[in-house]
């Protein structure tokens, strides 16, 4: 293979890296908006997704503030219905589904493969543009009277309410295609752009996780697309497939919706688990434990994710047999999830653990995801679900998984790859303070919801009985603490962009390929052909006090296999 350096900077050597990086490769807004560079697209996604997270967070704070007292606090009941719907829809469709794959996945996956880009760069850009168009259409619904159906758009209410359901669902439809194209691109990239010597079981586990996610994105999202189209047709034309007055079946909508949206839950959590596998190994400075089990468990979760959607309809009049089958299948998801958790624990065992900020998030994940996962079993059990269905217990459960799992791992990954993304180190001390605030704030917010849910507080209610007041208030104050944590994180991360210390190539001691290139990487990713070896050969690295980063103990290490002809 000839060394091909795109652009003007021909034959860049490691010494000239500092002058050639993807951030400075072109100037002006258009050089970003029309870039085909996966790294720039990843960064643009990051900006878009964090903006959505901010927007969704504002809605969440408004909801929590309203619930400070029973009855009206700051808004009317109708506004409250719109606020929790917008919180859910923005967080799910704009933030958490594209979240990790489109940002960190886009940036890191080709680097981990030693590739110059994703396989289909134009499609990657198209996916980003679709995301932007979808986001605008979805957010436009706020101006057009917002939506008050809850993020699930259940019929028959969604076909009869006067709010802007069409705009929001059309937005979600377009965002779905953005997600499909991202997933499709990653599947092709993983299949076709792996370097020679990197067999399937020498891929980093992050790649395994993103690959499993991509399979779900590609197979499940089209069904959401057609479901939302049918919903739009139902509203505009009165088609009647979901309308019992016309012989239709509203529960069919729920089946369609959850056929996508339950696998979508794993679109959210699998990339988080993918990040966890990297963090656990790197910050324990130890080879990952049970590599093949973790890899296969990602695939197992992807497969099982398609077989459990019915557990959302235990109380919707599904047949008893279907309930029983879906319940059993739901329990089976716990197996691959637990396989991962135990392998991470075993990785830490006798490791040399560094409690850097990313590892603090990883430990938070272990704790919070375990609670979120185990409470999922309560809900998957038929008898307890009757009691807990549509209570705050459910709300707390999925926030422990989605927030305590996905968002926490996303933060961990963001801190882990931040030096690679922008070439700057953030303040470690503030990083730890931020992680602590978020951990405490999160638990205060949502653990109380488990308690009030099990006492019977229904979800989505504007008003509540006096007995729930202490829980609601604790939850609201917790959400303020949580927001403070995010303000801290945003503060020091932004500060680091301008004032941060220059990052070394490998600040944490990771052995995957992205740490072999400079921080930030050049436009062509690597100055020379890449070498593929064991991605968890972390013990072959040593700390170099001079650069304050990790370097190979033996640069010509035999563990590395030369790639290319």
């Amino acid at each position, binding site marked *: 293979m000839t060394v*091909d350096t795109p652009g003007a900077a021909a034959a860049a050597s490691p010494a000239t890296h500092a002058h050639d990086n993807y951030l400075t490769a072109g100037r002006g807004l258009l050089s970003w908006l029309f870039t085909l560079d996966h790294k720039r697209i990843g960064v643009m996604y990051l900006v878009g997704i964090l903006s959505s997270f901010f927007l969704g967070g504002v809605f969440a704070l408004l909801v929590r503030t309203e619930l400070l007292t029973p009855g009206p606090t700051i808004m009317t009941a109708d506004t409250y219905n719109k606020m929790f719907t917008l919180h859910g829809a923005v967080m799910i469709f704009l933030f958490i589904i594209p979240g990790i794959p489109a940002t960190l996945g886009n940036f890191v996956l080709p680097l981990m493969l030693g590739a110059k880009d994703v396989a289909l*760069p134009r*499609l990657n850009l198209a996916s980003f543009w679709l995301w932007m168009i979808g986001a605008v259409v979805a957010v436009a619904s706020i101006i057009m009277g917002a939506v008050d159906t809850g993020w699930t758009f259940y019929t028959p209410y969604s076909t009869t309410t006067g709010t802007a359901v069409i705009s929001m669902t059309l937005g979600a439809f377009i965002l779905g295609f953005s997600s499909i194209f991202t997933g499709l691109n990653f599947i092709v990239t993983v*299949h*076709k752009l792996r370097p020679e010597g990197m067999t399937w079981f020498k891929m980093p586990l992050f790649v395994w996780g993103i690959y499993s996610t991509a399979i779900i994105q590609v197979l499940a999202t089209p069904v959401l697309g*057609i479901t939302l189209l049918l919903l739009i047709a139902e509203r505009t*034309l009165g088609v009647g497939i979901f309308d019992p007055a016309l012989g239709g079946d509203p529960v*069919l909508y729920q089946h369609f919706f959850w056929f996508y949206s339950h696998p979508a839950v794993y679109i959210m959590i699998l990339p988080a688990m993918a990040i966890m596998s990297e963090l656990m190994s790197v910050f324990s400075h130890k080879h990952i434990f049970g590599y093949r089990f973790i890899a296969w468990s990602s695939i197992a979760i992807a497969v099982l994710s398609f077989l459990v959607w019915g557990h959302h309809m235990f109380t919707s009049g599904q047949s008893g047999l279907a309930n029983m089958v879906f319940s059993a299948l739901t329990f089976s998801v716990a197996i691959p999830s637990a396989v991962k958790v135990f392998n991470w624990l075993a990785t830490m065992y006798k490791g040399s653990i560094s409690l850097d900020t990313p590892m603090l998030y990883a430990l938070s994940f272990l704790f919070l995801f375990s609670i979120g996962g185990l409470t999922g079993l309560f809900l998957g059990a038929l008898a307890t679900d009757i009691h807990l269905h549509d209570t705050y217990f459910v709300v707390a459960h999925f926030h422990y998984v989605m927030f305590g799992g996905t968002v926490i791992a996303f933060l961990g990954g963001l801190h882990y790859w931040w030096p690679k993304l922008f070439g700057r180190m953030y303040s470690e001390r503030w990083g730890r303070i931020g992680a602590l605030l978020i951990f405490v704030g999160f638990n205060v917010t949502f653990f109380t919801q488990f308690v009030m849910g099990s006492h019977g507080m229904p979800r989505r209610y504007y008003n509540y009985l006096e007995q729930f007041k202490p829980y609601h208030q604790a939850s609201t104050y917790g959400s303020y603490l949580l927001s403070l944590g995010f303000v801290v994180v945003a503060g020091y991360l932004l500060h680091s962009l301008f004032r941060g210390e220059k990052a070394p190539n490998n600040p944490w001691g990771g052995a995957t390929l992205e740490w072999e290139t400079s921080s930030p990487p050049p436009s062509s990713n690597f100055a020379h052909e890449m070498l593929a070896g064991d991605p968890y050969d972390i013990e072959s690295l040593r700390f170099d006090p001079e650069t304050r980063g990790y370097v190979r103990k033996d640069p010509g290490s035999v563990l590395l296999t030369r790639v290319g002809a």
Partner: protein
Amino acid sequence: MTSHSESHHDPHLAHHFESPAQQYQSARLGMWVFLVTEILFFGGLFCAYAVYRANHPEIFIFGHHFLDKGLGAFNTVVLICSSLTIAWAVRAAQLKQIRILKLMISLTLVCAFTFLGVKYVEYSHKWHAGLLWARSYAPQVDHGDGDHGATPESVQMAAPAGGESAAGATAAPAQPAPATAATPDHSNIAPAATGPAGLAVEAAGGGDEVVAEPKNAQTFFSIYFLMTGLHGIHVLGGIGAMFWLLFCARRGDFDTGHFTKVDMVALYWHLVDLIWIYLFLLLYLIH
């Protein structure tokens, strides 16, 4: 990207691929995965169809008589021919036979436009007859109340519809296609002739009241328009892609034996064709 690929001797090789083979394989895998998403996309509609038909078979039995089997069959043949021509186009691109390539793409386009033309005729029949989706459903011929027969056309449909002519009912289904195909201008009448006739046959075997229009009959037309409409949009997409191929052929993209683009469009077109075959079976040829 174009500036990047200039450093290669092969102008079609993007900078991040090592070989044309790798690039071709990537495009091909990407296309196949895309086709999988398309199948799932249509799958939702097929599923809705299946559920609704299982719950309300009478609506489908009633409604399908208003579809013109002759035109549907003709369109099926047209699309199958277009699959042949586009496959031939791929072969021509591989062999660098640019003239044949252009001819085959043009023929495929002719087929695609023929398909849409016939679809236009079918849609306008239903438009005039008021056989539309959901709320717009306002059939201009009423069935089963037996008081028509004023015009010769409506005799055809009204006689069996009234349930009084067993002879007409048994005769009509024998040659439904010629009857309908022969009268494309009398939109609202001809399909109806085969419609109630078919029902009347069943009625002769089983009961008396099946000739009446079932409740929610409009749902059949909702599903019909949703499914064929979504398919039609895909046909339009294919037409756009084929014009693009012609443009690329003129520009000389295929002179070097680079046939990836043709191959991708062909794969897509085959799927469009395949979905139509299922639509034809499920909407036109049911009993």
